[in-house]
């Protein structure tokens, strides 16, 4: 059953992506600012402008532009960035690894800390650690990643300057990488000094992204765990003579993870969406930072390519979340 279920979900992703493409395309064609006007040097004639319009196909009717663009996209050709004069696909691919590393580290931070907070809160239910956990989640839940980023810059970058607040690596260090996955590569090569440096740059933006998700996970998991702890099967486990720790970890946790994963799936896409702004704040060279730059400079092909990339990423994440839920829940697995 799960196989066919995933096939159906996968097929449903196609119209969603198509919808995204249509909306993006239509939206961007009503941009009032003329992108061509921005890129021409002063003194160019009307002919030059006309020429450029033809080169970028902007003189064609909308429908023609759309079908041409769509068929190009289907072939993996996202066009050429107007501003950077480079292939969009290659541009996105060069920046994507940095964003992925940021998102993965942030997620790992959020899951780990959120999970620990929840378990601690339930284990010491009714005592001070629970109050601390509740207070912490309440605070971190209310404040979004954008503000956390700013707070970190102020506190840890400026007032107590302990961590760098800009970029991915110190620009004074010239380190050669063979791929864009700096973190993974230095880890594999065992270059721990570089790894440490990468981490000092990564930790603030990752923490800013992680905190809200951590709060969501902590609150959701704690609620589900508390709920699971009132279930009869926990009572049965207590009568079997198991300790509280074992019951939480081995009886309740897996049940509690099912609603937690489902509900934090959406929040997880928010984390990925949040990279847009956090990268901007920390001048981190990922696709989010690039996207804001593209919007400001009205770089149509680049914006289109980036939004489609994000959409594909989101859909992939949702599928992954679904898969995890199904793996955890035998009722759905065999349903």
């Amino acid at each position: 059953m799960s196989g066919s279920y995933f096939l159906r979900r996968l097929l449903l992703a196609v119209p969603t992506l198509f919808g995204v493409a249509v909306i993006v395309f239509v939206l961007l064609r009503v941009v009032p600012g003329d992108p061509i006007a921005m890129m021409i040097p002063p003194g160019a004639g009307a002919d030059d402008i006309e020429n450029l319009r033809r080169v970028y196909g902007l003189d064609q009717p909308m429908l023609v532009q759309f079908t041409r663009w769509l068929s190009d996209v289907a072939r993996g050709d996202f066009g050429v960035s107007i501003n950077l004069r480079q292939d969009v696909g290659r541009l996105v691919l060069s920046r994507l690894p940095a964003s992925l590393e940021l998102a993965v580290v942030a997620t790992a931070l959020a899951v780990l800390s959120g999970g620990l907070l929840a378990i601690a809160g339930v284990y010491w239910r009714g005592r001070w650690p629970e109050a601390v956990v509740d207070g912490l989640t309440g605070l971190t839940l209310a404040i979004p990643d954008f503000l956390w980023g700013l707070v970190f810059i102020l506190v840890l970058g400026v007032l107590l300057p302990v961590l760098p607040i800009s970029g991915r690596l110190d620009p004074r260090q010239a380190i050669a990488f063979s791929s864009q996955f700096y973190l993974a590569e230095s880890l594999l090569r065992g270059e721990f000094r570089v790894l440490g440096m990468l981490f000092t740059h990564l930790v603030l933006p990752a923490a800013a992204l992680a905190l809200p998700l951590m709060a969501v996970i902590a609150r959701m998991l704690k609620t589900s765990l508390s709920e699971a702890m009132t279930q009869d099967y926990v009572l049965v486990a207590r009568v079997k003579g198991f300790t509280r720790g074992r019951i939480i970890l081995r009886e309740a946790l897996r049940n509690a993870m099912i609603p937690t994963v489902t509900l934090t799936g959406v929040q997880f896409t928010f984390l990925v969406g949040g990279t847009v702004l956090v990268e901007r704040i920390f001048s981190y060279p990922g696709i989010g930072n690039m996207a804001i730059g593209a919007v400001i400079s009205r770089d149509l092909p680049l914006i289109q390519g980036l939004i489609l990339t994000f959409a594909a990423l989101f859909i992939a994440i949702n599928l992954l979340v679904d898969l995890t839920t199904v793996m955890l829940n035998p009722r759905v697995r065999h349903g």
Partner: protein
Amino acid sequence: MLEARGLALALPDRAAKPWFGAAPLRPILNGIDMTVGAGESLGIVGESGSGKTTLGRCLLRLYKPTGGRLVFDGTDITDMEEPELRPLRARMQMIFQDPQASLNPRRRIAQIVAQPLLAFGLAADRQAALSAAHGLLERVGLNGGYGRRYPHELSGGQRQRVGIARAIAVKPALVVADEIVSGLDVSTQAQILALLAELKRDLGIALVLISHDLSVVRVVCDRVMVMQQGSVVETGPCAALFAAPSHPYTRTLLEAIPLPEIDPAWIEDEPSADVGSAEGRARAMDIEGSVAFVTGCNRGIGREMVAALATAGAAKIYASARHVEGLADLAAAHGGRVETLALDVTDHGGVAAAAQKCGDVTLLINNAGVNANRPLIGGDMAEQRREIETNYLGTLAMCGAFAPVLGRNGGGAIVNMLTILSRVNLPALGSYSASKAATFSLTQGVRAQLAGQGTLVVGVMPGAVDTEMSAHLPQPKLPPMEVAEAALAAVRQGIESIYVGEMAQGVAAGLAANATEVEKQFAEYLPQ
């Protein structure tokens, strides 16, 4: 008033949904036939998954059936859309299983009860509706300030009272009550059931009570319908069905109920096939397709017997009586299947002629009887002779005349309508008891004689029955329909002696245990 024919419902089974296309349909109800008469109370029982709750909602057209017809008050409501149904909804109401979920948590109790009055325009304005609501709440035993409270401020029993008040607010003709006492303690349950019985009696509402608890149904309902996996396995008057359940599932269900009395065998034995109130078991016979001959059809059990036979699917019914003109309406009611004929069972020539004429009979029901209501000594001799001639000789003549007919038609069955007084004499009705005792003895003898040709001979021993014949006897009395149904149930299962009703069952049990004691008790009922 409400009639369902072949009612079916199938819902999409989401779990089995294929890659593409619609989910396959899973049948929930398979062709339910049922009727609910005005003022009648019908219990629907079954275990979880039997479809009883779905049926209840289907009857009120909260679900749209996928097959069959549903007629309410003469209107076919099977395919009606919601706007058309709306005016009818005032006449059919529902009481829900979970009173917490069925009361809008954001409304006060009085508003909840007043709402249907306003919705159906039964109250002039808000104020009138609210004051009517307070009256209704008092009617269901919620006096004082309950109207101003919210549902969550009430106990489970109180909430269920609110549910009842809301349902009866619009004076409906039919109320479906779905497991309304299942979550309640016995003391609360008893209160709600008492309230329900009282309202049913006072307001003349037809009630469909859905429950998994047969005891609850038995206490409240006249008729009962047993469901299993979306089908009706058995239906009949409560007294008859509980006394002699014909379907094995019903028997299992009844035996599984733990009665609050010590019985070590209950938990040790495998379930036995025996039914407490029935003795012996010969060859069973289907009523459906049978050709029946009934005597004494102009009143009481005889009339109901004809109706019961028609409902049970008898192919043909000869309805006889001394005065044939009283039978015209029976023939009209059941169409071509009922044929009336004049017959006085004391006229032996007439009896022989009837047997000659009705050569296709497979089921003979000797119902004709008279009761002089006299003691043995000091009674009118002529009346006593008439009793013997009708009750004993008449039955004997019928058995004798029809035995060859039944033998030719494959054995068939004879049902002799007796009385519990055939087993023990009630001095106040001394001569009647004695004549019936003779007939009881006759039944035993005929049974032995006809065993060879495969004829089932059934003796039906009811307690006091609510007929003209025993109008002067005190309550409780059995409805004649129940006696008729029980008799047919006995035929279906091949039970040779059946005691109908508590009184008869009690006396029979007493006779088996200590006959002298029973005789002593009956001896106290001397003629006035």
